[in-house]
């Protein structure tokens, strides 16, 4: 298994609010799992906890990633080990230019693998190729990370980072939200290009729409911090027809 989440219980560090109340999930190599659910179900929390964000307390359960105890690792270690979270709300870094940011991230990954750093020319070559595939203009590299980006630009930038860092596990948190149909297609194609036998995806989405482009192997419904139903791709359609209430009941 690429990822095994076993009975994971999470509460907020501050007010001890319980958010995940025993979530289990097994994602095999090369598989695509969709996680759907109403607002406030805990979907983003699951993504954040897997990526190592602070502020959560693990009150039970475990997470195994590719044979390692994920919860014992720092966020940056997890990323270098191959976990990638495409943020629902990418964070602005005013004054940090996109090229510097991408090169720093890429070189951190390369250093961890014992590879030499990319020089500016090698980096640009690699970057341009991926940016073209995502229909991103070259002057994008000179902008400040996520600063003044439109919703679509932010999501495209998340996918660009994913393509460059070549993770093993990609967690996409509502990467479809706020996208028009053309942008959605570009982003979905970007994701599909990355699909291969050694790479797994957890696609968090609110709507079934994205799953027409990124075909999942399994669909899980998360509601009030629990997986209330799991099934094949047909479950997404059922959700669309009956709503979360109807399915979870």
């Amino acid at each position, binding site marked *: 298994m690429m990822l095994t989440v076993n009975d994971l219980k999470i509460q907020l560090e501050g007010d001890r609010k319980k958010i995940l109340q025993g979530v289990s999930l097994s994602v095999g190599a090369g598989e695509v799992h969709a996680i759907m659910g109403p607002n406030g179900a805990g979907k983003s929390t699951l993504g954040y906890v897997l*990526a190592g964000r*602070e502020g959560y307390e693990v009150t039970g359960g475990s997470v195994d990633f590719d044979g390692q105890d994920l919860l014992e690792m720092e966020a940056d270690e997890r*990323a270098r080990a191959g976990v990638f979270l495409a943020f629902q709300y990418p964070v602005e870094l005013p004054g940090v230019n996109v090229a510097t940011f991408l090169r720093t*991230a890429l070189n*951190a990954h390369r250093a961890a693998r014992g590879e030499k750093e990319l020089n500016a020319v090698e980096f640009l070559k690699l970057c341009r190729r991926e940016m073209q595939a995502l229909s991103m203009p070259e002057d994008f590299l000179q902008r400040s990370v996520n600063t003044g980006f439109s919703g679509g630009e932010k999501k495209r930038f998340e996918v660009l980072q994913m393509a460059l860092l070549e993770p093993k596990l990609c967690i996409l948190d509502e990467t479809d939200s706020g996208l028009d149909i053309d942008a959605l297609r570009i982003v979905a194609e970007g994701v599909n290009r990355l699909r291969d036998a050694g790479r797994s995806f957890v696609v968090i989405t609110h709507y079934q729409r994205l799953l027409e482009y990124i075909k999942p192997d399994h669909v899980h419904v998360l509601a009030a911090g629990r997986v209330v139903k799991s099934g094949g791709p047909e479950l997404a359609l059922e959700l669309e027809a009956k709503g979360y209430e109807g399915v979870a009941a």
Partner: protein
Amino acid sequence: MAAKALTVVKADAVPWPERAARVLGAASLPPLPTPADEAFHFTNLRPISALKPHRDSDWELADVAAVLPVVDGPQVVVVNGRVVPQLTVLDGLKGASVRWDGVYPVPEVAEALAAYHAHQGGQVVEITADEGEVVLHVIQVLAGAQVPSGGTLKVRVAARAKLTLVEHLVGTADAAGWWNDHVALEVAAGGVLEQVLVQDLPLDAVLTRRQGGTFGSGAAYRAFTLQVGGRLARVASQFACAEEADIHHSGLALADDGQTHDTTLLLRHEDAGTASHIRQRNILRGKPGGKGAHAVFQGKFYVAQKAQKTDAYMLCESLLLAEGARVSAKPELEIYADDVKCSHGASTGRLQPEQLFYLAARGVPQAVAQRLLVAAFADALLDEAPAAAHALLSARVSRWLDGTPTVAPADDTVEMNTDWLED
């Protein structure tokens, strides 16, 4: 033990100003300002009175040469307030002149720092830019333990001239003096002055600089001050702008544990249509449990009644990277005209956990992530530096960011310094 206690009593018996007056050959000198004086409310000059007044200007050429920054083009080297001709290069200086034969007149001055300055015996270095574009470096070196030390820089820019003056303040490895100098700027109508100051003194040194400037009609002044060194470093400026004068003053202070960097500015808008943009950024670093770093920013706009259409803003932003770091920001407005745009703002913050997490989620180790965010904070200001000095400022900032936090001497070790009694 008993003998030592007796020594301390004796130390307090002779007031510091009196000791300094003896050394400088002055009849008397006023007491140094204290936090009871409004202008020094946030900046305590106590470290000065822990230094031993000392006049001899013995220094070794090799010690000075070792700390001179390497710069291209015309340059004046001043050590302890006196020009060193053998290190000064004026070949290729066109459209401008430099002289240092003037003697500072000793006036009756009430202001304490000016009174000390008048008796220090520093030279007056006069820089006059007459025409064309001129770039000149002035390298000021504090050598040994001169207390107080420093001369006067008189800068004049004529109507058709643009002068880029890049000043480097450095000290020899053992420098632990008090540098107290004065800079007088005068830019004629239509002239342009770019003034860059790189304050890179050793951590034991104290700096008190007073700057005065008058800017004629339509004159432009672009200043960039980078403060890195010094245990206590204050640059206090008072500028007066005539009609349509345009002022941009940017300051970046990089302070570690035990350092205080003070930027004090008074802008007098005397006539209509002037603009002044003041931006200060402070980055305060330190070790856990350290003494903390301190940044002081005092900015004041005075707008005379006839100074209509004044467009003035000041912004002081500080980034606190350690517990115990603190900022004292005091913006003031005194406005007598009614059709003006004046604003001020101050913000103090820390690195955002959300930003650090975003970088961590991309595999960037924490130290690298912090460096990236702090550099971005500094870069935004460096973009405003005069082009001729951008590379050198940026290199100095990078070196500070890469360096491990340095620690200035603790107050108590200095307070116990009574070796002046052995004279």
